[in-house]
């Protein structure tokens, strides 16, 4: 009834590079298209191009036929079981909102561990970096990391770059981005007071953070 989904394994030959356009999850090697990851093959056929236009005075050449794009889908669970199947593997992408926990601060950047992408809680932690110029939208040169984040804070940020081998690059330069949960030096959970302050209800001490606007 339904056409069988063909699964590609990494390194599997998918076709000639001249026949298809490479999509996500594939790569070209020696003008052949290979799969890079394990997953079902999907071909997207572009809309049929119009034939050559006929006019009395001109003949416009036909647009060259656009080849289909072959890609390997990510995030499809291979078993359909509700609990037993593997969790969908979601990766942070550019412009996706993530929740992360600050692991270390340095004068020019804050290292974070990305815990949630969109609505999905990740199995493993991805490393991210918030540079000092990406903390705020205004007065970027006057930002002090120590007054924006502290280790242990939970931060809502947006991915601005997939970065290099070790880090995603994140930004909190928006009103809705920043620290959403923080604990004081005394160890108590704090409440936000303004865009730059959290307050400990027990000791009454205020601490500086780059606070996200609560919904």
């Amino acid at each position: 009834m339904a056409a069988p989904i063909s699964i590609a394994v990494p390194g599997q030959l998918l076709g000639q590079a001249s026949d298809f356009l490479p999509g996500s999850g594939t790569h070209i090697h020696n003008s052949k298209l290979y799969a890079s990851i394990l997953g079902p093959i999907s071909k997207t056929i572009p809309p049929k191009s119009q034939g050559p236009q006929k006019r009395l005075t001109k003949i416009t050449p036909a647009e060259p036929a656009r080849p289909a794009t072959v890609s390997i889908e990510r995030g499809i669970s291979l078993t359909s079981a509700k609990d037993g199947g593997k969790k969908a593997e979601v990766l942070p992408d550019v412009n996706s909102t993530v929740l992360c926990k600050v692991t270390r601060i340095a004068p020019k950047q804050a290292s974070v561990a990305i815990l949630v992408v969109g609505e999905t809680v990740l199995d493993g932690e991805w490393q991210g970096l918030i540079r000092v110029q990406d903390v705020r939208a205004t007065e970027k040169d006057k930002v002090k990391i120590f007054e924006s984040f502290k280790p242990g804070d939970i931060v809502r940020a947006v991915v601005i770059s997939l970065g290099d081998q070790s880090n995603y690059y994140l930004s909190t330069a928006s009103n809705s981005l920043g620290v959403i949960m923080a604990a004081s030096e005394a160890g108590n959970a704090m409440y936000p007071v303004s865009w730059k302050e959290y307050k400990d209800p027990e000791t009454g001490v205020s601490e500086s953070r780059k606070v996200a606007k609560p919904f």
Partner: protein
Amino acid sequence: MAADPILLPGDYLDPKVLPSHPSKALKLGPGLLHIPPNSIVSTVAGRLCTDNKKNAVWVEYNSGRYIPVVDDLVIATIHHSATDFYYASISDYSSNAILPNLSFEGASRKSRPQLAPGALVYARITLANKHMDLELECVSASTGKSDGLGPLTGGMVFSVSLAMARRLMLPKPGEQGQLVLLEELGAAGASFEIAVGRNGRVWVDSKSVKSTLAIGNMIQRTDQEGWMVEKQRIMAKRMAKEIS
């Protein structure tokens, strides 16, 4: 005046010993912790001190470990240099502090200070917290002048306890800290220059190696042997005769 109480860590303060003031709020200094709502507890072992005019109460104690605080003046030893800054050591038990190349008087991208490993600098702490590495400066950030900060050439550095460094840095060491040694040495004719770092280091420079060593040694002995004012006077006079 009642005898100054000696406190141990964890001792709750008797409300009777606290000073009171009609308008100012009570100020808690080092060594004391406020536990809401009403108790004040000592976190260190030392002597309780009160100041009725400022309505302040604190504990005078001698701890072994220097905990850096912003705006403290310290004597740092250059360990090695990196691209834009020097790594300097404040104490044996903590990691190196960062001293930017441009934080010296008259420093620009073209002219940087040349400091070899082992050189001493008198610096001010700009960033101190438990999450990040320590940062220093040798120039006042607002005025651009060094105000006595910067490299210390010649002389020798001696270690003293943190309480002694604090006594040396008091505005009136004679009456507030029972320390008249340096005054007496100066009055008796010895000429020397000193710089005191709150991290327990004193730099002494004088005309000859003998006098430098003698003065440094005297400061250390005042600290270790607990000399009172009279003994400091006698030893200072005796030493000044020997040096000059």
